[in-house]
């Protein structure tokens, strides 16, 4: 029942051209329609992550960036009754299968409120367990002044995931980086208060 069209140079070019044009037009239309929902989905993901890692707050989280040790970090400040109550800091470290990116929430009195994984590519069943509460809840209400953010194998206070020391180290290191960034943010605000002191405490 097929009536294959005779192939000639003209109709071959024309046909491929037409197929490409129609497909591109269709894609452009779908792109235009889905653009906003995609942005909304990304925004919702960030907002969810922020709400998970910081204590209750009012209004919208305020985004900001800071440079620490030659690298730029982005963070969100959340406030309640006009005073900042916590910071949600995005930090990353090198895991086993690629970057481990975390959102770390630290309260105004320098306690890690909670952490959540933004993205990771660790081995399923091994390192990927870092998203599970059994591991991640160790960092809930964690006081970095009292306990050490290194795994027990290296003399610290973090229980590593079984057979996934590299991932556990990466997770802890990312949290530690976030604490450093937090200190820089707070120091930056104090210097701003004291008016122009260039000492970036690190």
């Amino acid at each position, binding site marked *: 029942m097929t009536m294959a069209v005779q192939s000639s140079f003209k109709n071959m070019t024309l046909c491929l051209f037409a197929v490409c044009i129609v497909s591109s037009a269709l*894609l452009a239309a779908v*792109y235009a329609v889905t653009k906003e929902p995609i942005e909304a989905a990304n925004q919702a993901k960030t907002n969810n992550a922020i709400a998970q890692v910081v204590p209750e707050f009012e209004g919208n989280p305020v985004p900001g960036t800071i440079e620490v040790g030659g690298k730029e970090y982005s963070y969100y400040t959340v406030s309640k009754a006009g005073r900042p109550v916590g910071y949600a800091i995005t930090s990353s470290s*090198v*895991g086993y299968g690629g*970057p481990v990116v975390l959102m770390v929430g630290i309260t105004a009195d320098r306690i890690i409120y909670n952490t959540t994984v933004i993205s990771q590519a660790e081995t399923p069943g091994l390192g990927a367990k870092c998203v599970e509460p059994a591991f991640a809840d160790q960092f809930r209400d964690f006081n970095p002044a009292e306990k050490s953010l290194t795994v027990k194998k290296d003399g610290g206070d973090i229980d590593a995931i079984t057979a996934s020391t590299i991932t556990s180290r990466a997770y802890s290191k990312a949290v530690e980086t976030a604490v450093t960034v937090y200190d820089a943010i707070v120091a930056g605000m104090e210097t701003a208060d004291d008016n122009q002191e260039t000492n970036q405490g690190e």
Partner: protein
Amino acid sequence: MEYILIIISAIFVNNILLAQFMGICPFLGVSNKLSTAVGMSGAVCFVITLATLVTYLFQYYVLVPLHIEFMQTIAFILIIAALVQMVEIVLKKVSPSLYQALGIFLPLITTNCAVLGVALMVVTKEFTYGGEPHLLNLGESVVFAFATSLGFGLAMILFAGLREQIALNKVPKPFQGIPIALVTASILAMAFMGFSGLV
């Protein structure tokens, strides 16, 4: 140093066939004989490296400046298809002997997902070679593509050698053909897991 890390990781640790499952169709399809496995690997090596180079340039000099990154999939697959055709034509003219060796495998490569997979990987995935997570630059991408195809070749040739030996033995009837090949691949994948942690 970073290049050495990329090469070791792409060949052994993150082997495209045995750890990432890309290009399984030729892996199971043309691995009956060692000679065809070598031919296929050669053709894949050639096409992956060339395709990654071209798609990388296309991504950063056409798609990104025009803000039409969403055309990525469609553009890449067209580039790969056109490239494979061109390689076939050029090879036929320039080196008939090489064409004889690789020619029959070329049409199969367009739908080999390792080619599109690597091309997409270098422009979307962040790698962590040498510290900070970053997207690969042009040099790293081409080295990564070439090393990945070497890993493809290594797994392919090892596998074909194993299958040639298995063909001489008595295999229970339900396992004949693909199932015993899959069991072999499983053991080979286990062996490759030994490399993990190397990089």
